[in-house]
């Protein structure tokens, strides 16, 4: 079970959080102008890497805030947490 450092509440057990999938998948500005393939790409396709992954978590049973996490999907090491909308910290890229 992971130990995730909520940016607001500090390190907490994974059971307090919910996973929110890959981060930095922004809602396209002009969704209506996209063709079906491009829309499907946005809606369904994810990178699913082995290794470094930028992903979203929410502290469901804590402060209910969303944030981003840099996690290695193979080693489970968490390199950084950062605010939604921000870029991952330099040293965790």
């Amino acid at each position, binding site marked *: 079970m992971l130990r995730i450092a909520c940016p607001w*509440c*500090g390190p907490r057990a994974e059971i307090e959080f919910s996973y929110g999938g890959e981060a930095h998948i922004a809602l396209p500005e002009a969704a209506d102008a996209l063709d079906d393939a491009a829309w499907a790409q946005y809606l369904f396709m994810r990178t699913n890497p082995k290794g470094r992954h930028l992903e979203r978590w929410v502290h469901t049973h804590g402060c209910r805030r969303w944030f981003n996490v840099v996690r290695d999907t193979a080693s489970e090491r968490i390199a950084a947490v950062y605010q939604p909308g921000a870029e991952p910290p330099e040293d965790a890229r």
Partner: protein
Amino acid sequence: MAELARDDRLRQGAGISIAERPARACIDLRGDVTDARFVHAVESVTDLRPPSQGLAAASGLLASLLWLGPDEWLVVSETQASGELCARLRQALRGVHAAVTEVGDARIVYAVAGPNARDVFAKGCPLDLHPRAFRPGQCAQTLLGKVSVLIHQVGQDPAYEVYVARSFADYAWAWLVTAAGEYLDGSEGK
């Protein structure tokens, strides 16, 4: 069973006491702590600045402000009437982007105190309540058994107050009494 007398909600043992606290005013307060007008308005009503630090609680004569999130606090008062406190906050926050919402009827508060209090919590709360990690005056939202709770440490002894949503209060009580079973007087094992 919300309407039944809750005065049987008291259990004690040498190292533990668990009791339901009387209803109190609880107000969910949202606002921007970097907005001086917001901070000033809250201060003018409660004499307290909303803590910006996670897990912090501010307590005064009138009320306490328990940190719930970076823009959310629980305003708690055992002496002020909820509606009146709410109205004063809304009045003071006129023109400021903020939200003042009464939630006192949505919460039940249990007091858990005594040397075994940490042992009881440890049976279902993943939070580290060791004195090196969690101190009097701090509050945290976490899990107790299968429900979300807000735990506020109110005393060194240690003493805690546990806020739980009204509909989960029966479960939380049963959970606390079960977890405390081995420390209670005349434990019936229920």
